């Protein structure tokens, strides 16, 4: 069962950096990713948009595995700023999970 954290959802919504709302879940990003991480970015972004903090935390390893190479972004038809979104999630994890 998925659990929504309203504070997390609010922080994602209020963020100027996180812009995955335009994602149409086409999967091109996952298809071209050199790291071959299927979960990242589209599914993790969907979790973030829905405020499913637990699901995002389960994917901490994947989030830090991203190369930030923008291969996904170069192919994204919705022009989502994928690399910056990943960085936002890293920033969130650093502050709220690792307390850095």
């Amino acid at each position, binding site marked *: 069962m998925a659990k929504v954290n309203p504070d997390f959802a609010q922080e994602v919504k209020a963020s100027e950096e996180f812009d995955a709302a335009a994602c149409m879940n086409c999967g091109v990003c996952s298809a071209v990713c*050199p*790291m071959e991480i299927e979960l990242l970015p589209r599914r993790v972004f969907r979790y973030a948009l829905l405020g499913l903090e637990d699901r995002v935390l389960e994917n901490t390893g994947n989030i*830090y*595995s*991203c*190369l*930030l*190479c*923008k*291969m996904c*972004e*170069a192919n994204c038809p919705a022009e989502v700023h994928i690399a910056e979104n990943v*960085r*936002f*999630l*890293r*920033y*969130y*994890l*650093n502050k709220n999970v690792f307390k*850095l």
Partner: protein
Amino acid sequence: MIDNLRIRGSVLPIAARSATKWAKGLDIPRGGKTVIYTGLMYQLLPYITASVRNLERFEDSFWGKFVFVARYFNKILNVSKFMGFPSKADLTEYNQILRNIALLLRQAGVEFGYLHERELYSGALAYDLGADDAFRLHASKVYERLKQDGVQSLITVDPHTTNMLRTVYPRFIDGYDMHVRSYLEVLVERNMPAARKADADVVIHDSCVYARYENVIEEPRTLLDRAGYRVKELRDSKEMTHCCGGPVESLYPKLANRIGKKRVQQLENAGAQNAALMCPICLATLKKAGRAKIQITDISNLLAEAYCDGQFN
């Protein structure tokens, strides 16, 4: 990493002597309105390569569970000093790349200084890992030092430092006013003739950051073409360049190596004698990916051979 940045000014601190050795004998003036800015990237890579070699040994072992202990020691004692010792060959190779770039700029008639031991790392890794607060403090420190030294214009030598100083710093520092160009852009503008024309095929491995963050795509091609190289294009090139895997090497060395091997295979399939790279991380990662049937080299080596006539050595 954040402690290193805050206490020692770099994610992997190295001695100033090591960071500035490349400039020995070049008599580059100290400071000035225009400076060559290395961001310490080429100098750091031999140390990172040596550290990763050791990290790989621990990655899946019993002792890997205790690597976190280093974090606490590092607050007092610079643990980086013990993480790996770079090979002399690597140090010579990476320093030569910086010398090539300085000599190319001189050959092109560019006047520039260098901050020598006052130069700081750009903070790129902290930014990439989302450590924005630590990054902001560090970026401010870098900018303050540039202003103290009267710098107005920066000539960068690697894609990550270019991206940080040109595109990211303005978002973190109010009133940021540095003019930043990659040395490749500067050389194209100067339009200098080749001292000797090459007669060889070359395939370009575009840096992700140059191609997709900074739009530095045509410049390496123009310079190689003017030097007489025949540039062979890959399907995965320019804006669609395939990452080398390097950015995650310190976290997941085995994954990075797999990606690197795939890219080397693509470069070999182009059928050229040389693969021209333009990033120290790409260079370290692809060379490490295994024995290649193609000469993997930094583009500055090819350009220096073609454009430098020896009078500025």
